[in-house]
């Protein structure tokens, strides 16, 4: 009975993605196309966080590190080694994923607040290392706070639209897979009761690591795309904790551990910041703070999460 709804949602999802693929042909306004790209970009990024933290309940407070690694890998690959964009993009994802694998093994043993703080510490440490590496070892590699300027792409907005769309599509497809697979049931079981999951045969370490690494892989891709898009990166920008905060808040508003949560949360918050952020700059952050507090107090499961509970829907 439930699987019927799932099918419908999957078909709708595929349909919307296919329709979006033709969008640049119809949208004349560069501003609008850019805005849509940004929304899709954030859906993907929030989705990456949801994949890991939403489903396993392990709160990652340093996802931005994989975004930053992606940015730096693509920048260094293109400027220092002259590798074209698409291969560099792929390398970014792989390196982000590999770092996540190495970091995940010791870190994923930690529980609760300790995991959150450890991931946060790792992200800040990486930021400081990219900032100080060159000066400390007298080399020119990360170029410290001067940042790296990438080759000007010369591409228009529709190019980046077509970069972002497939990656976000893959992230959402991964969500669908998580909702319907052995792997996904393992993750959800870990979130609900880790010991019970373990004695029911769930290889908790492998499952958590799988989620963490795939999340990092996609974040690396997004980081690489953004670096190529804005063509200039510095450690303080790409490792900015504000990005982490944004992913967390978007997912939380939409609903953690749900398929549509990141979609709703990211769209809502991006549009709000686009419309209010410009006009009420001074009050914007106060309002965001207020929205967060109110949302946590009255709707701790997020928009989709609350809907799911009320309507008893299993998958959305």
């Amino acid at each position, binding site marked *: 009975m439930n699987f019927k709804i799932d099918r419908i949602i999957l078909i709708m999802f595929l349909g919307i993605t296919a329709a979006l693929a033709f969008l640049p042909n119809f949208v004349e306004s560069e501003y609008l196309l850019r805005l849509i790209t940004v929304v899709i970009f954030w859906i993907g990024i929030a989705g990456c966080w949801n994949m890991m*933290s939403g489903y396993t*309940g392990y*709160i990652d*407070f340093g996802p931005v590190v994989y975004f930053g690694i992606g940015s730096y890998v693509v920048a260094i690959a293109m400027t220092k080694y002259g590798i074209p964009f698409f291969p560099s993009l792929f390398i970014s994802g792989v390196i982000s994923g590999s770092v996540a694998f190495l970091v995940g093994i*010791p*870190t994923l*043993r*930690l*529980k*609760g*607040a*300790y995991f*959150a*703080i*450890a991931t*946060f*510490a*790792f992200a*800040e*440490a990486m930021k*400081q*290392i990219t*900032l*100080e590496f060159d*000066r*400390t070892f007298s080399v020119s590699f990360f170029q410290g706070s001067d940042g790296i300027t990438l080759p000007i792409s010369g591409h228009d907005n529709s190019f980046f639209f077509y970069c972002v769309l497939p990656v976000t599509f893959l992230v959402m497809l991964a969500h669908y897979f998580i909702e319907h697979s052995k792997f996904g049931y393992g993750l959800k079981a870990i979130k609900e009761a880790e010991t019970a999951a373990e004695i029911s045969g769930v290889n908790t370490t492998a499952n958590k690591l799988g989620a963490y690494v795939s999340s990092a892989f996609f974040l690396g891709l997004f980081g690489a795309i953004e670096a190529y898009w804005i063509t200039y990166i510095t450690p303080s920008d790409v490792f900015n904790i504000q990005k982490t*905060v944004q992913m*967390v*808040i978007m997912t*939380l508003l939409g609903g*953690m551990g749900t398929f549509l949560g990141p979609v709703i949360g990211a769209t809502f918050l991006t549009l709000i910041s686009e419309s209010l952020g410009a006009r009420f700059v*001074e*009050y914007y*952050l*106060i309002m*965001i*703070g*207020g*929205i*967060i*507090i109110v949302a*946590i*107090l009255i709707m*701790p499961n997020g928009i989709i999460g609350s809907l799911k509970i009320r309507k008893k829907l299993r998958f959305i």
Partner: protein
Amino acid sequence: MYTVFAQTIINGLLLGGVYAAYSAGFSLIFGVMGVVNLAHGELIMLGAFTSYWLFAYFNLDPYLSAPFAMVFLFLFGYVVQKYIINRVIGQPHIMSYILTFGLHLMIANIAIKMWTQDFRSITTSYSGANAAIWGLNIPLARLVTFMVALLVTWVLWFFLMRTETGRAIRATAQDKEVARLMGVDIRNIYAITFGLGAAITGLSGSVMSPFVIISPEMGLEYTIIAFCVVVLGGMGYMPGALVGGLVLGVAQSLAATYLNAGVSVAITFIILFIMLVICPKGILGKGSVA
């Protein structure tokens, strides 16, 4: 050579004392309620601003205005806990992070609205004063803060061990259900604990005000350091904040002298990460692990 080294250690210890002074409240709040308070730095900011305005309008010395900061922040903390944070106790811990992060955004940005982003400082007669002993400089204001850290740790320890309210707080920290059955009003205890944590944090902000830069945006940086200090010392273990603060202070000071200032920040986070992975209970092994 030896003078440089000795000076580095002294700077480190004094810095560590400052860290300990403003991290004790963070540890108390985590230890009792399991809340990682991301608005911790804002409590310091409010303490420092209390002293700043009392100094600016009434020319009141920061050390004399410290009690006002304590009272103000106790009330502030009590109300925030009672009406806001209490409502997420018992929910997944992420709720408390996000909630306190929301508080951080609101408090910091309202403060910007009210007082602008300007950097301020309090210049007292003793702001730059140093005691010179054997060719070493000891900044007096930091020394006083160090003393305050020791005093706060001791008084808090005494309070928790010897008073009725202190016992109720410890009982609640160990097992809130049993404490409730024993007739402890949990919500009130939580509010008092948060108030206390906020009060000692405000006190630290106040005694630091003669030598730090005061601005509405100062908070986040302090929250992050408090994080490190408390993890190093062992989360929820009160004397741990002192130990963690001193260790971190000395480590940073050594890194700043012998490498460079930027590296000392990197080292802070590397230490924090390694510490969590190897020994989440802290240096003394007495922290609580969820």
